[in-house]
């Protein structure tokens, strides 16, 4: 695997009022790498994800994507955002659009792909996440797991350089978690660069190159999944793992 840095965060700081949510974050995600971010509730995992495609502005530091700094608001930012796909915990599909329209909206409106080509590609992606038959349904007619797979197809349709997942399976009924993780594992093995906030240790062990452990807005520990789950070095991580393992 080539290790060209794709997403680079340097000394990133972010406050919500008095709350210091990201403290001097330094992190590099290489091209083709899968990084799992893990940590207690409120440690800043979502905020970290959201700063990478600038849904949240940062107070100081730099974030670069493929060597380019994130631009301020405006067209440049919209363009760059389309290079960063995002999959949310609550799916966030467009409720007034069909499954296929959800997937083709970005390509037709942002990338200016022709309708026929966008539809064809959209169907390929829906087939790939095994939901092609539901193309003409509306999101509310699908199960949570199906909706999340559509959301993944929607993000993929933009040909992003990196995909961000913020707890993609946390809102799902247990029996639907696996179908979504399977899609993600396939993507990982196909070389997609991914940052995944998740507590699914099975996925982390199977698909991740690296685990990043966050607590109180800081990156406390980074390691391979095996090392991290079997021999966490920091006390915070040991404490955290002992809690989620007993669940």
């Amino acid at each position, binding site marked *: 695997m080539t290790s060209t840095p794709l997403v680079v965060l340097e000394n990133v700081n972010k406050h919500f009022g008095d709350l210091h949510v990201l403290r001097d974050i330094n992190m590099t995600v290489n091209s083709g790498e899968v990084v799992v971010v893990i940590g207690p509730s409120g440690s800043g995992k979502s905020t970290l994800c959201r700063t990478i*495609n600038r*849904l949240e502005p940062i107070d100081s530091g730099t974030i670069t994507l493929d060597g380019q700094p994130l631009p301020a*608001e405006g*067209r440049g930012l*919209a*363009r*760059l*955002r*389309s290079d*960063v*796909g*995002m999959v*949310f915990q*609550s*799916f*966030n*599909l*467009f*409720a*007034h659009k069909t499954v296929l329209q959800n997937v083709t*909206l*970005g390509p037709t*409106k*942002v990338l200016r792909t022709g309708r026929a080509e966008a539809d064809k590609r959209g169907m390929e992606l829906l087939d790939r996440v095994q939901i092609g038959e539901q193309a003409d349904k*509306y999101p*509310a*007619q699908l199960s949570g797991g199906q909706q999340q797979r559509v*959301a993944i197809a*929607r*993000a993929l349709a*933009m040909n992003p350089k990196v995909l961000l997942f913020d707890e993609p399976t946390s809102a799902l009924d247990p029996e639907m978690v696996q179908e979504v993780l399977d899609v993600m594992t396939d993507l990982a093995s196909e070389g997609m660069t991914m940052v995944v906030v998740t507590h699914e240790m099975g996925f982390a062990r199977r698909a991740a190159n690296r685990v990043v452990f966050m607590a109180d807005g800081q990156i406390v520990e980074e390691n391979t999944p095996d090392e991290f789950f079997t021999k966490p070095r920091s006390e915070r991580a040991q404490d955290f793992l002992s809690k989620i393992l007993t669940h």
Partner: protein
Amino acid sequence: MEAFLSNIDRVVDGFSWTVRLTLLSALFSFVLGILLTAMRVSPVPLLRGLATAYVESIRNTPLTLVLLFCGLGLNSALGVHLSGTVALDVFWWAVIGLSAYTACFVSESLRAGINTIPLGQVEAARSLGLTFTQNLRLIVIPQALRAVIGPLGSVLIALTKNTTVASVAGLGVQEASREMKLMFDQGVAPVLPTFLGFAIGFLILTLPTGYFFGWLSKRVAVVR
């Protein structure tokens, strides 16, 4: 009743002006209402401030005053004319006044509709790279509109009834209630049947509007 019916052409003519006032004002207030709403949710503080100031001030002013301002203020005192013929001149001023006023209520409804849209959808659209206006045009407004079809129907019914203010508030615009008053004054028909006839005329306009919007809002509702 016969005396009233023999004047039915005057009644129909009066209502035809009511309908014209209503439809044109509905169109302009809808467009202005969408524009005001877009400004009110925009990231530019100045636009937000302007739109909010407009909506809050006009919405809380009696319609009579708004129309008097158009008729006596802009039209008569300042001499701004929109047409060579007096009847059309006051008609267009009435449309402007009614639209300026009704747009506030359209905007209030739309804003309530926007609040029903989960923020996550807006963020998802942003993360795809849609610009603010694309987001508004493709995701937010279509869903907000569907959510407020019912309330917009009520706004339209209120507008239909509000056109009657245009004849009393300094403009003397031709419309149904003015025709009714003229018929009283000229004593062409007994008061009660005339009154009843015009009241029924308004019901014929407003009741189907209400039913239609109720039906439409069910039809296009977004399932969540």
